[in-house]
């Protein structure tokens, strides 16, 4: 593995609520090398999603330092973070978050359109073909099944050939069979692009497919280990 593409140093996240401050993350330090696949696992409320969103620049750390692709996130403005996400990252959500007024093709083309890239629609059509949705390009999200919507979301996440893919429980809203298809698709696409993949999941089988499992509890990393080869073999 090469130099770290994601690096966290003593990162804390504390949110305020009416009842008082809530400590979500407590002093996380870790680094993820370029091209690695990593799973963040842990019980509900352990801070998995918060950790992922901080790496994606969607949540700001209360203290500590986060560096992505050699760029420290703390000093960046909201727009700076947006631009970095557009250029470097693709994000897949549990709830898909497609723009309901846009067709599948338009959703996938959107990141490139926002970046002013001329080949937005050609790339989008090719990506939709790659995820097996050529026949659905002109459909709106409401006309697609959950699995199809997640394929569109994955295609959108890959639109600008990101170096990092973040996935937040990508199969959480799907049935087991469809979830398996989506995971196979996601891992296959990642592999072809040699992108870094960080995935939040409750699913041990899915976690075992990654190079590394970061286990969290109560806002802290309680274990950080390579996935068990046996499990990986079973899963694959």
């Amino acid at each position, binding site marked *: 593995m090469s130099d770290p*593409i994601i690096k966290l140093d003593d990162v804390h996240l504390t949110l305020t609520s009416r009842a008082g401050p809530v400590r979500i993350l407590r002093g996380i330090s870790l680094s993820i090398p*370029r091209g690695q696949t990593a799973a963040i696992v842990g019980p509900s409320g352990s801070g998995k*999603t918060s950790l992922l*969103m901080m790496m*994606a*620049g*969607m*949540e700001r750390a209360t203290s500590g330092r986060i560096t992505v*692709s*050699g*760029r420290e996130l703390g000093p*960046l403005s*909201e*727009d*700076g*973070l*947006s*631009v*970095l*996400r*557009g*250029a*470097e990252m693709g*994000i897949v*959500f549990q*709830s898909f*978050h*497609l*723009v*309901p*007024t*846009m067709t599948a093709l*338009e959703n996938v083309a*959107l*990141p490139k*359109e*926002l*970046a*002013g*890239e001329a080949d937005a629609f050609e790339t989008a059509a090719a990506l939709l073909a790659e995820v097996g949705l050529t026949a659905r390009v002109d459909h709106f999200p409401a006309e697609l099944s959950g699995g199809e919507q997640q394929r569109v979301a994955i295609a*959108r*996440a890959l*639109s*600008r050939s990101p*170096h990092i893919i973040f996935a*937040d429980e990508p199969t959480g809203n799907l049935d087991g069979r469809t979830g398996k298809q989506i995971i196979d698709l996601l891992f296959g696409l990642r592999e072809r692009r040699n992108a870094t993949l960080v995935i939040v999941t409750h699913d041990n089988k899915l976690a075992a497919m990654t190079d590394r499992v970061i286990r969290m509890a109560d806002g802290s990393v309680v274990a950080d280990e390579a996935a068990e080869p046996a499990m990986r073999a079973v899963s694959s």
Partner: protein
Amino acid sequence: MTALAGVESLSHPRRAGVWTIIRLGFRELRNGFDGFRIFIACLALGVMVIAAVGALGDALRAGLTTQGETILGGDLVFARMHIRGTAQDLDAFRRLGTVSETATMRTMARRADGSDQALAELKAVDASYPLSGVATLQGGGSFIDAVSGDGVIADAMLLDRLGLKVGDDMRIGEAQLRITGILDSEPDAIVDRLTYGPRIFMSLATLDKTQLVKPGTLIRWRYAIKLPAGAASDRKALADLRKSTSEKMPDGGYTSADRFDPSPQISRALDRLRQFLILIGLASLLVGGVGIANAVSTFIDKRMKVIATLRSIGASGSQIMGIFLVQLLAMSAIGIAIGLALGVAVPSIIDAFYGDLLPVRIRVDVSLQSLGLAGLYGAIVALLFALWPLGRAENVSATVLFRDSVNATGGWPRRALIVLMVVLATVLVGIAVSTSEPRSIAAYVIAGLVVMLAVFGWLGGAIARLARRLPRQKRPALSLALRNIASPDGLTRSVVLSLGTGLSLLVVVALANAALVADLQGRLPAEAPDYFLLDIPPGDFDGLRARITQDAPGTSLVEAPMLRGRIVAIKGTPVEELKFSSDTQWVLNGDRGLSYSDSIPEGSTVTSGTWWPKDYDGPPLVSFEGEIAKKLGLGLGDSVTINVLGRNIEAKVANLREVKWESLALNFIMVFSPKTLRAAPHNLLATVRLPHDTPSDVETKMVRDIGRSYPSVSAIRVRDAIDQFSKIFAKVMVAVQVAGSVTLTAGALVLAGALVTAQRRRILEAVILKTIGARRRQILAAHAVEYALLAAIAAVVAIALGSAVAWVAVTRVMELDFVFSLNAVFLTLGVAAVMIAVFGGIGTWSILRAPAVSYLRSE
């Protein structure tokens, strides 16, 4: 190392161009009008009022211009008081084209036996009348034949009043005349100023027989001229012709008009009314602005996840702003287009249903300026109110996608947007002020609106905070109602703001109306005279006084010499070269009543300078009304040149007076030293004050005796004149009230929008209450208490604030005494009760009908 290359481009990232943002914005429009109906309705309503007022003004002006020749009775008209045109004047007019001479005056028309009489507006015409248009008789027949010989044509109302019919005789002045026809229509009626009585037509030869015209008689001679075909066809050529002709008669004392602006008085009155109604339209647009802001805020809330998604895939704040701005502009364009379309249709609708009430037949000819102004106001208001909530969309963080945030759109928009809003507000005020005359009215209207929006905006929040602090109530309905009022995303702010602003404007219009009515009628019985007597020959006055006091003992008569003259120069400068604001220009535009006196007139107080001695014999002096003198820039010792009876007289201002106009005493702007005007032929004007409780038969006999003994004297009953004016005023007030009620409609739209927005949350709340055992009656009671409390507070504050704004408007702008009207209070409370009962009732009814299961499942 491609990753680093990407990172290095962060400071100057490649960005989508404007067209891409527009395309993305239009893609978002696929949402349809969801959430924008109230936005469009608020905008369309305000734009419609402004466009309708503008279009109606244009149509009336176009009507005046296209029918100008008919309305005027020719291409050009020259007119003057007292003296008939000389042979040289007539020659000068005839050199221009065909001339028609007419004379108008007030007189008394009597039954042949003298048993009854009525005030009439006499018009004597020559054989060429009318040069343009057609004068017609009821039942047909030749107009000119009917006025030949001793024939007179009378208005049906006059014949009804005197119990006469065609073929009967009537007496006018010293002549006994035969009624030969009933007037149907008169093409040039509206240029004869405000008329108090029904019309009588006769020939100029018959007028001579009446012996009404004597030196000093208040008679207006008009010379209508029809130019040969092709001569002076445009506005400028006609104006030049008017000017050159007037210059040939420097002492003529003629006023002139042409067919492009046949009645400057009507044009000016229409312009004033138009400007005022446009301001009311702007008020409804600004009230609707609250609905626009609410709609955009709700829209942004609904699109929060989409905005966060765009953030997560790399969209910048400006791109997100751009995408949603495109949508708002598109919705604004639709709202403005609907408003303009409806506004343009209004003149035709008014013409179809109420055309007879208008001073001229309208011609639908809407100017781009009127539409542009309405569209511009609409666009500015839409942007002004949408930018704040839209600007907060920029602050939406991608965090929203995984963590619901209470304050996701909190914070201020960025500075550039705030600067833009300030610029838009300044432009709006600038346009409103610069297009209004006088400008102070627009400034007052806008300041009043800003105060209202600020007060009610604050009040909503204050009520919610207060409700939070109140101790818990034992009664469930009250407790629930107070919790709803206290809720941060409850209806309190919207209801108080929309209802409060709309009701305040209602109070302002009602109180301004009350002040005007009170001014016209309230103080009259105590102070005003009962009759004005016109055209009393000076030699007849003592006899007339004796006659009246014999009929009605205790009657007091006050007389004053009365002439009419026109100011032709101020401090040596001809008035044509002077420019004053329109509230002063009227003094110079036509003939004014003049008098002379050796003592300070009744109802006047000298405020500076001194009154001339009783036996003053020096050069001409004049006493000027103080306010008007100030506006004309006249001070003590300055000179004023007046044309009286075709002669220019230069007088020095000796003193300034404060005049109590509302006393309706014999007040004149200019009163001269006696020697100046005593030698000029003139008649007297007198006021008659009857003792209180004078029986009506005594009054009738007195008027009949005046008519019999002094046929040239006209008696105008003040009460009738006031009633006549009140009728005209009432028509104007209807237009103001209609425009004002549109403001209330805008408030209702805002209220409806707020209720629709809150409906889903309130249904869910009611469903939850039902699942834990609340009865429909309890929910209904809670809603009723909540709405009643909010409406009552909004109405009470609206009455207080509206009264304060009305006080400023009445005392500072209208310069009248403020009168508080309980009717305005009851009207406000009534409208508040009806509005809240209708809107709240519909909302609560659908809430109580909502099926529980579907709502609980969908949450």
